[in-house]
């Protein structure tokens, strides 16, 4: 059985006046049917750009330079816009970060939902409207008829994100890319949204890529986790493995900087230094300047290797007790 999505050596670069930004530089991963993959990294690590690359929504000065994006076996990297338009919102849907900005402020909710159906299917408006109403009900929105007639500004942030999720599920896509969908929300609403998204994914068998900077959120949600740093996936594996036994020093740093109850009183681990300047990355491993385990070998580029069932880009995997 082929995976729903296979990304192979994806490179998305931005050709700016100041130089070339290699926002995504050789990223490979795959998402199986019904699988939830967490894509984690700091802001600027290229995780959102990876998501947008899959949908073909990279605007100049950026473009996909090389690599393949195989969706159900078909390479859609740099596919014609006509083809991508048929996939977008239909087979591959996306949920954005800020629900206050994603819905058009001057169009009613029903307009924005119905157009998403009509863009891909020849059904009458009545049917489309009914389906929109059902979709709103599925994401836990009370009195959906009323909400359909509302404008976005009449709904709270959490409600709007539920609408966005409902839109994403409208055409029963095979893959949903969720770009930090809970970052802009309150913690309690965050949990509800994650719950709804997880439930729907399991019910419909949809695959999902959940992009987040918050390892704690992804840990409770994803089947597999990929950690990105400076445009590359540095560690990738099953969630439990990555969380319980991180191998890459960066993953260890990320995990160490999450406050949690069982570490009360212990000093929070801190990754030294600043997020890298994407215009002037150090040669070799981009994380080396901030890494506690860096050796002279790190000035070379680490290749992807399989270590303990994981794909890793590191010369010095921290096999055990790195935190203590």
């Amino acid at each position, binding site marked *: 059985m082929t995976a729903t999505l296979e990304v192979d050596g994806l490179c998305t670069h931005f050709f700016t006046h100041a130089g070339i930004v290699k926002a995504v530089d050789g990223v490979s991963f795959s998402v199986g049917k019904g699988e939830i993959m967490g894509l984690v990294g700091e802001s600027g690590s290229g995780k959102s750009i990876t998501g947008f690359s899959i949908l073909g929504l990279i605007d100049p000065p950026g473009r996909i330079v090389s690599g393949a994006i195989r969706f159900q076996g078909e390479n859609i990297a740099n596919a014609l816009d006509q083809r991508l338009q048929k996939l977008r*919102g239909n087979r591959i*849907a996306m949920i954005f970060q800020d629900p206050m*900005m994603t819905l058009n*402020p*001057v*169009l009613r909710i029903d307009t924005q939902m119905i*157009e998403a159906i009509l863009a891909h299917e020849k059904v009458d408006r009545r049917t489309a409207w009914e389906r929109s109403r059902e979709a709103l009900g599925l994401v836990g929105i009370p009195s959906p008829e009323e909400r359909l007639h509302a*404008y976005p*500004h009449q709904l709270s942030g959490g409600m709007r994100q539920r609408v966005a999720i409902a839109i994403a599920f409208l055409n029963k896509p095979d893959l949903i890319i969720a770009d930090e969908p809970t970052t802009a929300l309150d913690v309690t609403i965050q949990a509800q949204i994650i719950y709804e998204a997880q439930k729907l994914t399991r019910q419909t068998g949809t695959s999902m890529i959940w992009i987040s900077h918050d390892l704690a959120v992804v840990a409770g949600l994803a089947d597999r986790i990929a950690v990105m740093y400076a445009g590359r996936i540095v560690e990738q594996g099953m969630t439990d493995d990555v969380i319980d036994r991180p191998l890459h020093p960066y993953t260890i740093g990320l995990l160490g900087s999450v406050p949690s109850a069982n570490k009360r009183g212990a000093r929070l681990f801190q990754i030294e230094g600043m997020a890298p300047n994407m215009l002037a990355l150090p040669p070799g491993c981009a994380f080396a300047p901030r890494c506690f385990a860096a050796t002279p070998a790190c000035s070379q580029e680490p290749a992807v290797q399989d270590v303990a069932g994981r794909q890793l880009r590191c010369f010095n995997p921290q096999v055990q007790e790195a935190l203590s």
Partner: protein
Amino acid sequence: MTVFIIRRLLQAAVVVMLMSVIVFFGVNVIGDPVYMLVSPDADQAEIAATISRLGLDRPIWEQYWLFLKGAAQGDLGNSFIFGEPALQLILQHMPATLELAFSALFLSIALGIPLGLYAGLYPDSRISKTVMAASILGFSLPTFWVGLMLIILFAVELGWLPSTGRGDTVKVLWFHTSLATWDGLQHVFLPALNLALLKISLAIRLTRAGVREAMGQDYVKFARAKGISTRRIISVHVMKNIMIPVVTVMGLEFGSLIGFSVVTESIFAWPGMGKLLIDAILQLDRPIVVAYLMIMVLFFVIINLLVDIIYSLLDPRVRLQDQGA
């Protein structure tokens, strides 16, 4: 909505009252009232008679009251030159001015919005850059000078279009218009273009800025992620958003089109209110001046009111705030 309109109507009434005070005192205190209200060649007895007839020997507040009473009955005095009621003369000349102003508004929208849309969608293309440079010129060039150039080019050198007058008019419904005859259209084109030039530039800039802002918004990217066609994104998602500021500003600018028509009408000898005003100023026909000023105040107040209402109808965010209040 009704509360909103009533509140705005009251505000408008206050503004009109205030402006009537300013115009009245402007004419009667700063200038010499007798000189203004009696034709310059009147003799002593006539002046004395007029003074007592107009009540100029009474206290100023009483005079203002009389002025208001007259104004309320549509009596703003008689023109010295024509001997007819000033208000009636203004109203007679109004259709020509409105025709010119509407033609200019039409040109501004019909040319400005598509050009602005193009410049906003393809900001780096050569055509866009040319359009933007031209719009800067359109802002800087004095209207009257452009009018002269249009006459030199199209009327004198090329001889394509007539340079003066209004052309044939026909009666449509209850007013005369030149927009329904070929000759009339030929006559209206140059003055309308001249009057529209500033507003075309404005429409280009507004539309371009709006498009560029909207295209970068998440809601456009989200619409693309939904698989919506580019055509629908531009014509529905983007246009609906930018139409709010464009319609509002262009509506407000309609008032200034009527004001600016003074210049254009003088150059192209267009028989509207503006031409009437300039002639009145030059011939010291003060009642016409007062009547024109009061009509313009009324015009602006009404336009501002209408635009506010349209704005609140267009923008759902404003509309609902008002209902809640």
